[in-house]
């Protein structure tokens, strides 16, 4: 029997499509209850297949999946009640009114209409769609459609929420609001699994992570452990004036990008103080500094290369 602490337990999950493409090669994945979990991978890695099997839109070829201790092969109906799904593609009836879309989904989960309406109102308000409740689905912007799908997935108040690229095409302000909403939801005990191509989003929100590539899990750990494995970081420094023709940063590797911009590689064992000391000694003033790439992105690329 599965530990009650586990929201999702996947063992040896495999999928071979009818055209003999092996999308999943026996993956194992464990997500604890209350976790905010990132499932990352490049396009075609097997993320959508994994989620599709969980959605019951793709039939698995082998392996087992347990949702909060319920084996989907034994009682998929009961397992489905515990899952909320926000797919990557818009999949609601665009001719329906926003509120009806959410209320109807509640009905599919057996919620009496009064309760479904109450919850629809609650989540439409929380997700900033209350003013649009009587609009037709197709009249919403891309970001609003994504939020509508989140409201719809929450109407039966699932224990496990699976979000497949929920912020794709959403502007930064709206994305931040969505992050805040998801954090609150997670703090209120909803387990969240997130797939995204915005790695800073995963780094900011998720505590644990799995990286999938070519149908296999290539990394599965806490976010902290993963980032700890990062050996170097690259910083971009903008100088206040033109950089001298000849310059040195001692043991730090660097590259001149243009007359006023430097890229400095800092080993994990060192710190940035030495860089600034060397620059000051040469009379170089730095006006701004930023990471060249997100830390998780660097790790992600190194794991997949």
């Amino acid at each position, binding site marked *: 029997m599965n530990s009650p602490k586990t929201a999702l337990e996947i063992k040896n999950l495999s999928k071979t499509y009818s055209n003999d493409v092996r999308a999943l090669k026996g993956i194992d994945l464990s997500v604890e209850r209350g976790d905010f979990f990132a499932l990352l991978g490049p396009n075609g890695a097997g993320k959508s297949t994994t989620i599709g099997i969980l959605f019951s839109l793709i039939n698995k070829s082998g392996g087992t999946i347990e949702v909060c201790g319920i084996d989907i092969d034994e009682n998929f109906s009961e397992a489905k009640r515990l899952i909320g799904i926000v797919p990557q593609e818009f999949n609601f*009836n665009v001719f329906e009114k926003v509120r*009806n879309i959410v209320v109807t989904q509640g*009905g*599919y*989960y057996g919620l009496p209409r009064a309760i479904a309406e109450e919850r629809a109102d609650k989540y439409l308000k929380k997700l900033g769609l209350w003013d649009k409740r009587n609009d037709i689905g197709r009249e919403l912007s891309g970001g609003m459609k994504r939020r509508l799908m989140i409201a719809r997935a929450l109407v039966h108040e699932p224990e496990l929420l699976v979000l497949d690229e929920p912020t794709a095409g959403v502007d930064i302000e709206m994305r931040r609001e969505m992050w805040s909403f998801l954090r609150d939801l997670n703090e209120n005990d909803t387990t969240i699994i997130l797939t995204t191509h915005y790695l800073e989003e995963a780094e900011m929100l998720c505590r644990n992570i799995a990286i999938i590539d070519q149908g296999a899990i290539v990394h599965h750990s806490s976010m902290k452990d993963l980032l700890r494995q990062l050996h170097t970081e690259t910083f971009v420094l903008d100088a206040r004036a033109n950089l001298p023709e000849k310059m040195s940063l001692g043991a730090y590797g660097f590259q001149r990008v243009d007359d006023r911009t430097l890229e400095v590689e800092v080993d994990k064992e060192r710190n940035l103080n030495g860089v600034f000391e060397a620059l000051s000694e040469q009379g170089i003033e730095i006006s701004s500094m930023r990471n060249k790439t997100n830390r998780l992105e660097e790790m992600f690329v190194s794991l997949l290369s």
Partner: protein
Amino acid sequence: MSRYEMWVAFQTILRKEVRRYMRIWPQTLLPPAITMTLYFVIFGALIGSRIGLMGGFSYMQFVVPGLIMMAVVTNSYSNIVSSFFGAKYNNSVQELLVSPVPNWIILAGFVTGSVSRGLLIAVIVTCLSLFFADLNVQHVGATMLVVLMTAVLFSLFGFINAVFARNFDDISIVPTFILTPLIYLGGVFYSLDLLPEFWANLSRLNPLVYVVNGFRYGVLGVSDVNVEFSLGMITIFTFITFFYCLHLLDSGTRLRE
């Protein structure tokens, strides 16, 4: 799901289906009313007045039951085809597939929605027919039973079409090339007695003959075929089709990968 939850889910699907065809009533309710009125005027009043009696009734009285059934058949069929295929096309069928609703409830919800449109059309067309002919229903029970079972059967046929359809052409092929010819050759406009023996016997292979004559028996009290046999055939076909539809949903044919 508990029985109550299944009932809620069924009501939800039914409500959604009814809301769909009521929202687009100029496409779903108005055209059959206009088409049938034209049939009544052209075939019943204008041409029918020159034909004389058929089966002991005026031609108008004779064709009305067939035309009502024609409307029920085409509307039950087309409602579920366009609704379920539409849900497949815009992926909103996934809302149902990811939910815990049992497949038989999904099927029952869609079929009941289609049947409700078929019956609503039957009422509308019957009311319109009263402007053209006197109808005294002879067997109320048989009339109700035949119209209900026919609507169920053709909704199920429509569901199969919707499941297998890959594009909008696929949902119009069956109604255009199979359903309409079968309806026209199913004794809506003539009695099988008028046909030479070979063609009359061949017509008896057409399931629409039993549907039309079953209903005509209920309304007028006359039929070209044995009514008990008609009801038996409709019942058997309904059960077979229902379980086949359920098999399609269970196996995820054209719905799951």
